[in-house]
């Protein structure tokens, strides 16, 4: 299980989720933040923090946003750094 950051993060990139993540698994993927599913511990703390409700449990991601799940699963995280909280 993991959580997935979707469309609404683009253009928002509020970093509240980054601040609460206990395992620092939220990365800055350019347009939006992204959760590394290999590192996510399924704690759900990020979900209510998101002011634009962009974060879903992976089995509740709406049909038209599923590509975010795929992208997060296939991404090479070694090439980018964890997000930094800046709120």
């Amino acid at each position, binding site marked *: *299980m993991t959580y997935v950051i979707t469309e609404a993060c683009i253009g928002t990139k509020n970093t509240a989720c980054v601040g609460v993540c*206990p395992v*620092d698994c939220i990365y800055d993927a350019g347009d939006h933040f992204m959760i590394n599913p290999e590192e996510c*511990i399924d*704690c*759900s*703390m990020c979900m209510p923090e998101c002011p634009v*409700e962009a974060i*879903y449990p992976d089995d509740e991601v709406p049909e038209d946003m599923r590509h975010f799940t795929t992208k997060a699963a296939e991404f090479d995280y070694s090439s980018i750094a964890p997000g930094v909280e800046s709120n």
Partner: protein
Amino acid sequence: MTGMKQRRLEEVKALSVEEAVEIMRQAGIVGAGGGGFPTYVKYKAPQPCLIVNATESEPGYWGDKLLHKEHLEEFLQVFEAMKTIFGFERISMGVHEKDREWFADYQEHASDGVYDIRYVPDTYALGEEKTLIKHATDTRVPRFLETPDGTRRPGMPLDVGIIVNNTETLLNVYNALFLGKPLTTKFFSVYGEEMKLKVYEAPIGASVSEILRIAGIDVEDSGHLSVTDGGPYLHDMAIEELGNGDAYVRRMTNSLFLLPRGRQGKEYADITTDPPKEGIVSLVGKISGVNLPLGGGLLKPATPLVSEGDEVEYEHKIGEPAEEGFSIGVWASMGGAISSVENDIVAIAGGAIPQEEAEAEAEASSAGGAPPRGEAEPFQEAEAETSR
């Protein structure tokens, strides 16, 4: 009917919802798992299901598992009583898969039909209640929902008819309903760099430095260490540099975790610990002073019932819950003289300040000025034992 007094099982079961809620409020019970949410508020509107969160997840946490081991009978009674009082259709214990053997006695008693056990994956999830609900039931707490006034808020367990309370919180409910005993202590681990893990029951408001000394740490000579209130993942910094400043045991302190100054707690995420052979060690009656908060967090400060100079005994009521807002009763976590009531904190027996600081203040004030905070009579251990 709602006074703090001993009650037999049948008497507890005869309490109304309102009476039981009032006892919890007066007893000062808040979520001991770390949330600190006032417990009585959750039971004002009873839900069909209670989930007992026994999945303490931070590496090094043993308090809840030890409490289950030592208080099986108490948990069985409080489950039975709460099922009757609040009309729960179901009480489920949430237990990690890895802890099946530890909870074998509970599995055996589950066949009595009062409660069941839901085993959940060991995945570390901070004991988070929404994650627990996801794994322990077929239900999902909604991500967000509309409120009647048109705003949106994150979903909560009660949105799906569930109350979640952690182990220690429910033991505190047992103590209040059955023993008439208010909340005055907290269970937590002390562990980390340079020491073997210990689990203490300590008076709320006790000095962290004093507890570390009791645990065998040379506080004054350990400036290279920090101590957090909380585990490797989730914590607040308690003392950045040991020997310099102090912190106090809170109603939601679950551990004091020692690590080299400047290091990140998360670097210790994979530590493994064993439960202490001696079990839980009580420090009640062994602490020189406390600083007891009348409120804090979501809590509106209780109205103090004592003033400077008053003598109080252990478990003497010192704060009456405020009428408005979330507020709880506050009770003396040790006997002694009230040394100050200021900033919504009641200090007993000089407060929870390191002894040398107290002595320095005493010297400074002997030249005139305010009476020293460290001068109160030392707490009599024997009295504490008999009054428990």
